[in-house]
């Protein structure tokens, strides 16, 4: 079945040193449970899950501690049984070096599971299946951590031509998918069968780079068994040429099917969907065993004496993992992911999360600081290396000059940040850094713009409402005077007066009372952004406030005029 597959090519790509052998020598080991698990609530793309536990609570292994929030979100679970010691802000495994809400669990060593029930997806509706997978916390384990339940949707047609399984694993050093395929091919295939059924997929293509012959062989045996069981030959294992980034979802889809999925489009619209092999494994565990996603295979490699793959509970500090492998003395950093796309961790205390496919230990010797940045000579090497067929040097030019509109015209958002351009650049320009910068600036501006549009709309609506209220009041008044012409006008006035007065009095008294209370608290209450100002600035602020009060007065007649 391998031989008959026709392969396509994607443009660009590079062939860095792969360094994969170091971590494939030993089988997967189970990493010991740490003394304290730090489980971030936000581990997937989308909304931040709501915390479902509080400090002091006892949790079981697999118990939901974070509930999915919003349309795009995925639940988080306790990795083992124990006691929640705190729900607080902790340093995240994120390039920002910022903290976010984490659940701290002290394991009790009993590793006691919640009651596990297989999920009968065949008798469930598609929505029920997707809700189940969302609450089981299954997300893409290739590194992008996109909630899997959203991708397990065949789209408008109700069926899919091709289900692509990504076992390419093109990043240097990383071998977690490789060893998973070697050791647990049959389980992966069981997951694939489930996914194929949910998606009503015609054929399944499992793409594996040809530098992993053992994984290809293991997966071929498992695929044959699965095909025999199903009585067809829908599942094929395809060995694809080794070239970074062949494991990018879009690139692999292109290589296997010839289909190019544009940026911003759903691949299901093109009759194809792509999952990581680890995700298939997690889907099987969630559906057939009733086990939510609480651990994954992590490659520990780089500047260590014995690189190896471990099955790690989420929340395990990276430091503990690195210690298992004997880091060399000159190690100076921990990277989450591979050397091409990995993120520099702010600290080695950050926990392993669903996105952690690799903990890469670095040193100055292994990853020397880049030579000084030279000017771009427009040699076009980056454009030749770009797997998305972009013109990286043009995007660089405009990102650097902060002309973001132009950068977008050159399709900045089609960039997958694979790092090929920066890898080949003879001027050693940190091209990807410029794209990341430009992208996050553009996003921030878009959010700001949306907020401004909302504010404008609400402001205009308010003006409209005020105007309407005024007209209504005038109309009411006119009606009242017309109706009351027969009655005595004075009587009405007198009837209205006593009704209003006590209310006003009460209000005044309340305000006075509140003023007293507020005086006591006044020390605490002051605008946060005007503290720590120089005397000059304070004077300035005071002057502005005074002027603004004036303006408010001015504004009232102005608004009326506009009416």
């Amino acid at each position: 079945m391998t031989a008959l597959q026709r392969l396509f090519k994607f443009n660009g790509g590079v062939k860095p040193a792969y360094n994969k052998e170091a971590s494939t020598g030993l089988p997967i080991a189970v990493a010991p449970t740490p003394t304290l698990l730090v489980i971030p609530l936000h581990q997937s793309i989308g909304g931040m899950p709501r915390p479902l536990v509080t400090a002091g609570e006892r949790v079981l292994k697999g118990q939901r501690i974070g509930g999915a929030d919003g349309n795009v979100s995925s639940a988080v679970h306790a990795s083992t049984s124990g006691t929640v010691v705190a729900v607080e802000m902790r340093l995240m495994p994120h390039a920002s070096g910022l903290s976010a809400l984490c659940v701290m669990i002290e394991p009790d060593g009993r590793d006691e599971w919640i009651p596990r029930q297989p999920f009968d997806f065949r008798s469930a509706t598609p929505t029920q299946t997707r809700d189940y997978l969302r609450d089981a916390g299954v997300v893409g384990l290739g590194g992008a951590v996109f909630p899997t339940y959203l991708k397990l949707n065949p789209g408008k047609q109700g069926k899919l031509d091709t289900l692509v399984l990504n076992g390419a694993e093109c990043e240097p050093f990383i071998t977690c998918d490789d060893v998973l395929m070697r050791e647990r091919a049959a389980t992966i295939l069981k997951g694939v069968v489930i996914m194929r059924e949910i998606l009503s997929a015609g054929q399944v293509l499992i793409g594996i780079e040809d530098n992993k012959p053992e994984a290809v062989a293991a997966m071929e045996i498992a695929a044959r068994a699965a095909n025999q069981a199903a009585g067809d030959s829908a599942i094929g294992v395809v060995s694809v040429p080794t070239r970074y980034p062949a494991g990018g979802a879009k690139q692999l889809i292109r290589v296997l099917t010839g289909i190019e999925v544009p940026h911003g489009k759903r691949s299901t619209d093109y009759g194809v969907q792509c999952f990581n092999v680890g995700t298939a494994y997690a889907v099987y565990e969630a559906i057939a065993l009733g086990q939510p996603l609480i651990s994954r295979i992590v490659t520990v490699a780089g500047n260590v004496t014995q690189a190896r793959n471990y099955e790690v509970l989420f929340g395990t500090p990276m430091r503990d993992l690195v210690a298992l492998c004997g880091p060399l003395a000159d190690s100076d950093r921990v990277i989450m992911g591979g050397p091409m796309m990995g993120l520099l961790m702010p600290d080695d205390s950050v926990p392993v999360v669903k996105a952690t496919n690799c903990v890469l230990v670095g040193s100055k010797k292994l990853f020397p600081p880049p030579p000084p940045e030279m000017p771009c000579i427009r040699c076009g090497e980056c454009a030749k290396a770009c797997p998305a067929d972009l013109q990286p040097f043009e995007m660089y030019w405009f990102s650097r000059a902060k002309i973001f509109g132009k950068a977008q015209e050159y399709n900045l958002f089609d960039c997958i940040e694979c790092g090929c351009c920066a890898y080949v650049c003879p001027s050693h320009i940190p091209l990807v850094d410029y794209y990341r910068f430009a992208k996050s600036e553009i996003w921030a501006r878009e959010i700001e713009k949306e907020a401004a549009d909302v504010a404008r709309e609400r402001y205009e609506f308010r003006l409209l409402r005020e105007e309407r209220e005024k007209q209504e009041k005038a109309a009411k008044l006119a009606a009242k005077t017309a109706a009351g012409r027969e009655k005595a006008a004075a009587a009405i006035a007198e009837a209205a007066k006593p009704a209003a007065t006590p209310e006003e009095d009460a209000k005044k008294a309340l305000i006075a009372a509140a003023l007293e209370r507020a005086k006591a608290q006044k020390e605490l209450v002051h605008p946060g952004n005007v503290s720590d100002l120089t005397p000059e600035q304070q004077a300035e602020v005071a002057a502005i406030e005074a002027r603004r009060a004036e303006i408010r007065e001015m504004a009232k007649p102005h608004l009326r005029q506009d009416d």
Partner: protein
Amino acid sequence: MNNSPYFLKPASVQSVMLRVLVALLPGIAAYVWFFGAAVLVQIALASVTALAAEAVMLRLRDKPVMLFLSDGSALVTAWLIALTFPPIVPWWLTVIGVLTAIVVAKHLYGGLGQNPFNPAMVGFALMIVAYPSLMSQWPAAGFTDFVPQWNAIFGSRELDAITMATPLDALRTALHTADARATVAGVLGSNATFGNVGGKGWEWVAAGYFLGGLYLLQQRIITWHMPVAFLATLFVISGGFSFYDASRFAGPGFQLFTGGAMLAAFFIVTDPVSGCTTPRGKLIFAAGIALLTWIIRTFGAYPDGIAFAVLLMNIATPLIDMYTQPPVFGHKIKGEDS
């Protein structure tokens, strides 16, 4: 600490420039063999001037001098100037040419990577406009005596003995004179300048450049687009006109192997900074230069028009690039590829 990617391919601007210099060596060897060592003097002169000018400009612009000086880009400009100027021009002409290229065309526009015009061609164009006669005194092939050449560069200019019109110049002069009987075949056959294909000696220099160009292609420093588009266009247009009237228009063999055609195809047109970068843009850019070169050679006032052709196309570079953006992944029209 830097962000990903954490390791880089061992490539540098310096290694690119050095390999370009290496690629020029076969052509220079042939040059020395047929026309004497004067060109080596010019290369040395141009190199020293270029490095000095570069150093001063970098210093003035507050850039790290050693880092940029060692990138080799000034040397490439210097060598191209030395190879496009007649080897026996007086020393000060070379110096002014190089200074124009480095100071005006390169650094005043922002230095390496920022210049819209090919610096070497700016130097050449300015000098041929300012000193047309000095810029058209070329040594005769085979006259390789060093002393008179040295004297021509640094001292008295007793040149009649050693100079001779280049093939292009001779052809143009002959065809442009009122003598209606002059034909290409007549000129090429009668004049001692002309060798078998493109002029005695010159054809071998061109062959040397061709060899160097193949090395650059093999090293993937240049892509095939520009040399192929340039040479093919020159071949087709000169071939077409020569076929139409062989007595008035020189054939493609002569056009390709004479003047700076081969040097331009692989070393001048392919300057990445001032040229087009998209694959289709490169084809249009190089073809445009070839077309303009042929027009200037055939109808213009200057014997070889490469410098002007390059500069004219440099102006059009941003426009060509803008309209020839390759389709982005996934943006291609459906069914276009199979």
